[in-house]
């Protein structure tokens, strides 16, 4: 059972699993990636991914937006690169009778650092 039906504190567990499609750029070095969850009042909840790349939130039913943003600099080559790992998933509906588990695709981009 993912949710409590206690009327005084109705909370649900939402799982947000990160997926990486552009394997050629790899994944962030830090396996624990910060994930933010924003409710409709712009209140922010934060968690980090576990080994299954999943962040877990205990939140009231509602509509949410999840996002993640991580960056690192690769300075091992002559040309330095900044890698950005960004993902966003909007209109996530959390309710007691929903699965409350979504995937969030992380897009990887890189940009030259000219020194």
């Amino acid at each position: 059972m993912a949710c409590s039906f206690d009327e005084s504190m109705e909370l649900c567990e939402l799982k947000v699993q990160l997926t990486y499609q552009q394997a050629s750029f790899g994944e962030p070095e830090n396996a624990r990636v910060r994930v933010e969850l924003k409710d409709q009042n712009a209140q922010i909840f934060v968690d980090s991914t576990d080994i299954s790349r999943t962040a877990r939130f205990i939140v009231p039913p509602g509509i949410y937006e999840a996002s993640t943003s991580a960056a690192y600099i690769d300075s091992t080559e002559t040309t330095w690169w900044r890698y950005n790992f960004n993902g966003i998933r909007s209109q996530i509906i959390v309710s007691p009778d929903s699965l409350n588990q979504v995937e969030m695709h992380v897009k990887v981009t890189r940009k030259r650092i000219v020194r």
Partner: protein
Amino acid sequence: MKKKLLPFIMLALGFGTAEAQSWKLVINKTDGQTVELATSDIQDIQFVSEEETPPTLPDQNIDQIIIKEVYNGGCPKDEGTGSFIQDKCIILYNNCPQQAVVNNLCFGFATPYNAEGNNHCYDENGQLVYDAEGFMPALNGIWYYPYSLVIEPYSQVVINVHGAIDNTQTYSQSVNYANKDYYCMYDPESGYNNTGYYPTPADVIPTTHYLKTVKYGQGNAWALSITSPALFIFQPQGVTPVDFAMNADNLWYEPTVAQTPVYACVKVPNEWIIDAVEVFNTAKKEDCKKRLTADLDVGYVYLTNKLGHVLYRNVDKEMTESLSENSGKLVYGYALGVDDSTDPSGIDAEASIRNGAHIIFQDNNNSSEDFHERQKCSLR
């Protein structure tokens, strides 16, 4: 250098006097051809020296050009009765130690106009419908440089969007754009000809600094949001800005809306986009929705408009401090943020630049981390 001749010609001809007579301008060209224009069709005549036309240069370090500031929200009028919003600008910055050169640089903003507006672009899975196709819908029209734009290392260029005059003469909290180094979006022949937004630019701005536009939407002024735009700069690949924006195959409309000029967008491929920023409206936080896709920008920066505030890029503290030439030149104690929104580096970029420092700004494709709300535009 530009010379305006028409007023003198019309004065000499007695144009406008009681005698009802129509006149035309006749140009006899050296090749024997003749061009005739009715004076009623002519706004003014300008002679522009050829040496002012910038040469075409090869592209260089385009990926280092970033949006440094967006001033779109207007400022209070002095008399305290409302706000003045016809004084917008965008400031670009070359974030590297080498010269940057970009040809056909374009400006666009995403649909809908405001982050808090009705957004029909989300599907049932909470994904933007254009995300999978890899483009951004540029609403209303695009502006472009018709020549090579050169930005010196660690330097900026100012592009006025509306009101390329000294607005401080009327509203002291506005911006003075009467500067020979500034550029402006001014192309009244395009249909963007509302003189409230497009007064004749200040005389000191060379006509070669006027950007051109392709208008495919509704209205007589480029409708950059005064609350919350999603702005991006891009360079078309293998096609001119005009051919790209005029091609009906590139037109696109939000799902469910009428396919009229009001909602007309052109599809800008994401790989053409150089930089982008997403602005949310502080007064309507709960209604704001992302328009930029995650590969371009994953965050948002809040703006309280009509107060002279600006969206300003944060300093990359580690990279900036690592520059040996900045020793002793960086100014700390930055205090121009708005409420909780500030530059976490603590470095006062403008004061440091005046002190001779080279600033490297943060660029994580995340407006939440890369920008803050600043009390006033750096041009003030």
